[in-house]
């Protein structure tokens, strides 16, 4: 395949449609309907508990940070607040966009809107980009949420640990959305009926940021921005760290999530921040299963999946090797071994569709 064209209007986007890749059916592990229904069951309890804990901790950390401001003693509290604001909001945004966090719709919607603001995403746009990410996960030119493009741009990856590129992209886009609605590429996945909402949401976000800046200027202090806005930079590292592991170094243009997604065992703090999205193969295969049931889903289907990475460090080591190889050879991807109990990878499409991927690129 060689040089990839990630533009949503580019040659690879066209080829993915023409080859039938976008219409192909994804592989799913077998699971009896009854077990699946149990796993999909919704409840409010776990997410209410986690949400109260999350926002409670944020209030405490911010209050102590403000009280100790501007001494160095405030730093650990800002770091803790920042990671909850700039990283936990990503997983809350994600789970609530699926509508699986709570059983009660208004609770999902409320947390979704708050989290979208904190993670600097237009709530009316990103719902749709994420739907595309699930239909066409890592299809070059079709998936608008590809975190690691090939060849990997290492400097960009590093800068994004501090949210720098995301934020630099966010504000001009926010202003464009507030003035004129969605951009041309956003219009490829946001239905026309939602374009007005994209604009209204952008106007609200813009007003909130403008008010924070005005308050900071009036007080002659960046303190208001330490609470709103800046934590998206100084607290982004955890969601970038976990987000890169989701698909980094793995296959693109495949219809088997075992080939393009990664499950990683993580410590309980990271799992709270990340809301169990470390079970990423499972999440992509069965997006109906709420975050709190993913460990059970993992147990139910792990015999059909490649072995999970043992830790964040282990997964990074593995991904880093693959990214280094992709610098030299864009077609390289890491193909992990399946256990003997698993069904073979569904890679016919991957191997034989002309122009999509040369056979034997994987090792």
């Amino acid at each position, binding site marked *: 395949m060689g040089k990839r064209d990630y533009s949503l209007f580019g040659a690879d986007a066209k080829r993915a449609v023409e080859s039938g890749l976008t219409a192909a059916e994804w592989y799913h592990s077998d699971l009896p309907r009854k077990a*699946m*229904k149990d796993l*999909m*069951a*919704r409840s409010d309890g776990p997410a209410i508990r986690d949400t109260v804990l999350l926002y409670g901790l944020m209030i405490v950390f911010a209050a102590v940070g403000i009280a100790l401001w501007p001494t160095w003693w405030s730093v650990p509290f800002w770091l803790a607040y920042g990671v909850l604001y700039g990283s936990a909001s990503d997983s809350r945004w994600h789970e609530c966009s*699926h*509508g*699986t966090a709570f*059983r009660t*719709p208004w609770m999902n919607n409320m947390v979704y809107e708050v989290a979208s603001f904190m993670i600097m995403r237009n709530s009316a746009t990103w*719902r*749709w980009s994420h*739907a595309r990410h*699930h*239909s066409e996960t890592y299809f070059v030119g079709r998936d608008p949420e590809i975190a690691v493009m090939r060849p990997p741009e290492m400097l960009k990856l590093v800068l994004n640990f501090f949210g720098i590129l995301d934020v630099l992209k966010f504000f001009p886009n926010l202003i464009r959305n507030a003035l004129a609605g969605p951009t041309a590429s956003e219009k490829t996945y946001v*239905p026309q*009926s*939602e374009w007005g909402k994209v604009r209204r949401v952008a106007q609200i976000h813009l007003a909130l940021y403008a008010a924070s800046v005005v308050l900071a200027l009036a007080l002659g202090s960046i303190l208001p921005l330490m609470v709103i806005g800046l934590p998206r930079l100084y607290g982004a590292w955890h969601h970038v760290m976990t987000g890169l592991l989701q698909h980094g170094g793995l296959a693109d243009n495949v219809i088997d999530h075992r080939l393009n997604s990664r499950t990683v065992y993580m410590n309980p703090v990271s799992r709270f921040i990340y809301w169990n999205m470390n079970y990423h193969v499972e999440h992509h295969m*069965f*997006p*109906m299963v709420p975050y709190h049931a993913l460990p059970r889903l993992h147990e139910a289907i792990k015999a059909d999946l490649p072995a999970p990475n043992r830790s964040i460090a282990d997964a990074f080591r593995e991904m880093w090797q693959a990214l280094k190889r992709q610098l030299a050879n864009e077609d390289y991807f890491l193909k992990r071994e399946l256990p003997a109990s698993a069904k073979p990878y569904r890679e016919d499409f991957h191997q034989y569709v002309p122009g999509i991927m040369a056979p034997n690129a994987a090792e």
Partner: protein
Amino acid sequence: MPWIDACAIDDIDEEDLIRFDHGGATYAIYHGVDGRFYATAGLCTHENVHLCDGLVMDFTIECPKHNGQFDYRTGEAKRAPVCVSLRTFPVKVEGDRILIDVQ
């Protein structure tokens, strides 16, 4: 009226659904929380995914692909990313059989 024998009432658990294919089309038949049976088109209006793998909650069917939701009594699209409502079909029960009018 082309009433078609689709399945037995015991074939569908309460608050669940099954897929029924007939004449080249696919349908979803529901056993509602009110004990009644309902039928809709079997494919999601967003991306043609079979609804039979989805989740029935109260009077809602949630699509397994992107969690779009419909009211299966009326077909009304209730939650993004679905915008277009589902077609519904009349259902009747005769003895222990469920019949749907697929016209």
